[in-house]
């Protein structure tokens, strides 16, 4: 019947249903396309092979890398957690832009906070699809078992994913505010962190003036923590707590910024013109 639909719109149950509807919507897109599934794993696999072979070479020629087997491949896998969590968060949002569907979403009862939760969830799903096979292959090819990091891996993972979401949230806000002309920001923003947050080298390598900036970035503490674990066999919870505190502060700021961008887009009339 055209005119008869019973609605359940109030309370937490309704909110979770809306979040789940968006997660399922993005899930359809991923699971419905084999090329998309392969694409998710492609670059992490290429990166892992590249750095894995380099690690093997260095281990045979330098004593440091002989003692710290897996440090490079561990770095690249952790970097991919950060990178893929941001891309997963932003890409799902860009799907709405590319399909000119964002205004449909924003005029529905789905609230911005619920939408963000759905993007976080699908980001995790994409991350698992992309990285679990690659982590298993890293163990197979190079004998590096990321899961051997144990509970530390959980702390590293949580902090890096959180940081990825923060960058993704800012990038999405920029695209909402400035349209698809600003899409490239989504793809390059995270790479600004690559040299600063000490993925492949210790914090001490950076010039003195850059070190405080690096220390203000949560991923720096994760990569320092990873090196402490691999090189010194020491888990540094203090570094993880600092990273977590910074993550909370930055995510809160990014959430506020996203709302400001959304509000500005509503003032400027941009939401009716978003699209391809």
């Amino acid at each position: 019947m055209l005119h008869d639909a019973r609605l359940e719109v109030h309370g937490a149950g309704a909110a979770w249903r809306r979040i789940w509807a968006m997660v399922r919507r993005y899930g359809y897109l991923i699971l419905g396309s084999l090329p998309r599934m392969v694409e998710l794993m492609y670059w992490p696999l290429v990166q892992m092979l590249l750095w894995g072979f380099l690690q093997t070479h260095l281990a045979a020629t330098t004593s440091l890398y002989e003692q710290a087997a897996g440090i490079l491949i561990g770095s690249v896998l952790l970097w991919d957690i950060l990178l893929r969590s941001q891309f997963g968060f932003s890409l799902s949002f860009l799907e709405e832009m590319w399909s000119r569907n964002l205004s449909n979403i924003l005029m529905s009862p789905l609230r911005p906070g619920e939408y963000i939760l759905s993007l976080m969830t699908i980001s995790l799903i994409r991350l698992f699809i992309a990285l679990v096979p690659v982590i298993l292959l890293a163990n197979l090819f190079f004998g590096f078992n990321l899961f051997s990091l144990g509970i530390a891996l959980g702390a590293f993972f949580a902090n890096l994913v959180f940081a990825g979401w923060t960058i993704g949230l800012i990038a999405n806000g920029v695209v909402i505010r400035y349209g698809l002309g600003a899409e490239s920001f989504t793809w390059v923003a995270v790479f600004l962190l690559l040299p600063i947050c000490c993925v492949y080298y210790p914090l001490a390598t950076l010039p003195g003036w850059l070190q405080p900036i690096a220390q203000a970035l949560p991923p720096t503490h994760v990569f320092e923590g990873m090196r402490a674990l691999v090189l010194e066999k020491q888990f540094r919870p203090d570094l993880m707590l600092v990273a977590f505190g910074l993550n909370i502060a930055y995510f809160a700021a990014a959430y506020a910024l996203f709302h400001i961008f959304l509000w500005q887009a509503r003032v400027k009339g941009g939401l009716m013109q978003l699209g391809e």
Partner: protein
Amino acid sequence: MLDIPASPHNDIGAAPPPITVKDLVKSYGPVTAVAGIGFTIASGSRTALLGGNGAGKTTTIAMLLGLILPTSGKISIFGEDMTRHRYRVLHRMNFVSPYVNLPMRLTVRQNLETFASLYGVARPSERVADLAHELRLDEFLDRPAGSLSAGQKTRVALAKALINAPELLLLDEPTASLDPDTADWVRAKLRDYQAARGATLLLASHNMFEVERMAERVIMLEKGRIVEDGAPAELLSRYGRENLEDVFLDIVRGRQHAMTRDEPGGKELQGAGHAP
């Protein structure tokens, strides 16, 4: 500014009217898209916002949906302030426009079930099945939305707009680019829905033929202002014309309405505009 008071079209009962607009202004820098309009839409009515390109129709609809924030003025939907409390009423309304797409890679069923969940429909699958039957979507329910013809896409967009059986349905040129047969079918379905549900329809269009068939009240916009408001028959009588297109041309070309011709010295329609 022509501020239209309650008069014959407005609700007198206890329930607030579906739409109340007061002194609504939307400016983009020096450009004023909507210049202080006001109107009230009665429950269960069919109203058209009629005007040429740039008259302010779509901007007004977007403000009613909460996608654009007014520069000043107030919009109440079912008595709720749309700037502050839009989430209290969004589940009671919906929108259809050929200029807003649904995700093309998702099937029609996936699209509709997603929106059913977003709008809090209690049993999405059943609702989609009912709509598919009523709107003749069964044969392509499991095809990607991007593979459909323009007419099929319009039917799917209509199903999306009716997914929550909205009490208030906003339409922006709903039959644009459709062939006459499909356009007539869409109009018939909308009228059927409105009659059965007792819903309120607000249609933005510059298709005079459509407005004559769909609307029992016409609000004419010109350069962001309301220049006429009344039943189609009233407007035809007032301007001494046989169809709304001629009334529209009289207005946009700056001619005075027919009663002028009865005044001394007013034999000809005076206009700043072009000859027909």
